[in-house]
């Protein structure tokens, strides 16, 4: 196992009921930057995220985070090890206020004020709706809250599942920029599942493509972006050249 890999999955299988979803996933997420996980619907991307997070138990295989095996740890322990999860449905608590959502995410309920300020500058809407119920936020704002929650404490790995889903292009642009800022310090790595290929290409340094519960391609984003044939074969569409 390479020293630059922050997270590695080896031969991971996951069964949900009778369905064999992950059929031997081998994935390496290098330290720093954004690794994008691409694939069609139903390929198993969300299942992979949930398995890493321990929400679903892997039936076989190993998962190492920073050298430490985490495949049989319970979810709270995995979170405490330094992994944050932003699920597809954002997982924000609609009945709680924005502040309460953030308080839950902060260690011991206390904020690092400087860090909080930085986050609120990144997402000003949250400052505006601080005392209001999170259920009142728009889709884009909820997504921002979900991300803000994930980063209020410095984490080494962020698992982000389809953040751009259902959001307007301008918001997607804002998110893309926010992600760039988040990883700028080099301390945070992001594993991003994203269907929006433009966003994926902007942010991604490494890329892995999933199909039918397995990783069918892994490499650098730049290489994939340059190879039209490969894109066609793997994804059935092409990545646009970076504007």
């Amino acid at each position, binding site marked *: 196992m390479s020293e630059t890999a922050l997270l590695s999955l080896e031969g991971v299988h996951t069964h949900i009921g009778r369905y064999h979803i992950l059929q031997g996933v081998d994935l390496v997420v290098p330290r720093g930057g954004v690794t994008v996980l691409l694939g069609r619907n139903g390929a198993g991307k969300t299942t992979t995220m949930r398995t890493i997070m321990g*929400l679903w138990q892997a039936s076989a295989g190993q998962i190492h985070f920073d050298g430490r095996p985490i495949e049989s740890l319970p979810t709270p322990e995995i979170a405490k090890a330094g992994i944050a999860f932003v699920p597809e449905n954002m*997982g924000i608590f609609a009945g*709680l206020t924005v502040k309460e959502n953030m308080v*839950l995410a902060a260690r011991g309920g206390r904020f690092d004020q400087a860090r909080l300020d930085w986050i609120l*500058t990144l997402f000003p809407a949250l400052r505006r709706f601080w005392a209001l119920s999170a259920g009142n936020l728009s889709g884009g704002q909820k997504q921002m809250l979900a991300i803000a929650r994930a980063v209020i404490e410095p984490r080494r790995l962020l698992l982000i599942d389809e953040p751009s889903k259902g959001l307007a292009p301008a918001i997607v642009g*804002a998110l893309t920029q926010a992600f760039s800022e988040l990883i700028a310090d080099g301390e945070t790595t992001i594993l991003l599942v994203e269907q929006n290929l433009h966003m994926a290409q902007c942010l991604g340094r490494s890329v892995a493509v999933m199909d039918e519960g397995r990783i069918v391609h892994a490499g650098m984003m730049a290489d994939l972006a340059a190879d039209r044939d490969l894109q066609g074969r793997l994804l059935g569409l092409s990545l646009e050249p970076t504007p």
Partner: protein
Amino acid sequence: MSLANNTGGADQTVVLPGPGARERLGRAAPYLSVPLLALVALVLILAQGSSVPTWVTLTVAGLAMGVMLFIMASGLTLVFGLMDVLNFGHGAFITVGAYVGVTVLIWLGSAFAADNVWLNLLAIVPAIAAAMAVAGLGGWFFERSVVAPVYGAHLKQILVTMGALIVTEQLLLAIWGPERIPINRPDALSGAFLVGDAAIERYRVYATVLGLAIFGAMAYVLRRTRVGLLVRAGVENGEMVQAMGYRVRVLFAGVFIVGSALAALGGVMWALYDEVITVHIGQNLMIMVFIVVIIGGLGSVEGCLVGALLVGLMTNYTGFLTPTLSLGSTILLMVVVLMWRPQGLIAVNKGH
């Protein structure tokens, strides 16, 4: 680079979204149903030829019964909301609480029977404490051994918890025997206040005050403390709370224990209300508790209070106006509420 300008355009948040009048009415409606019911009952009682003092007596009785049901039901609704666990054996804690409480009261007989409120309290407080402690311990054991193995399997939960209810009742019968155990309220808790022409039973007033105090305490814990925050978040989306690093299982066990202890408290209060206990009180009350929890909305403490008050009032009003149809009318109430709001009066927004 600041994104302040970027969030303006496509975000449609130029106008601060606040609840409109219609939404506010929608949210207040469940709370308003309680005085509404009281008002309807007043009209019916007067129409039937009785007087306002009768209505007053019945209303106080209904409120007292309601808060006792609330205390018993609050644990069940939180456990279901938070853990998605159906505890059909919840009534066992009510019965156990009643039995332990009454036994302690009988042991401290002289203090309990004395004519001094403080001496009475000297007996009642330990009785309640003992009842809640035993039930809490039982709850911990129950959660670990009976419930935990069947998390996620509703059918099995219903079956096992019912089985546990039967076993508990049988154990109580083995220890205490099948006879009803009477317990007389001391003078300080008996009798009535006279307000105008209305006789308002003293015990009912105290019970109501205690019940509302407990509701207040619960509301405070839920709204103002970190634990309460975790519970509220957990009710909405337990997975996400775990993914944020909290050991939800420990929280579950805690809520289960508190819920069981509260059920026991309700049992003791009910024992003093009825002045007699049998092994089946838990089972009998469970039907009312279920109705309360269904009407209120699984997982909502406020809903539980409203539901309990409605059921308490309904039972007392119909007990006076149409005794044969008393339980039937409460069921009718439940049907009506479910037609209006299938998730209960104050539904919890389940995030997952």
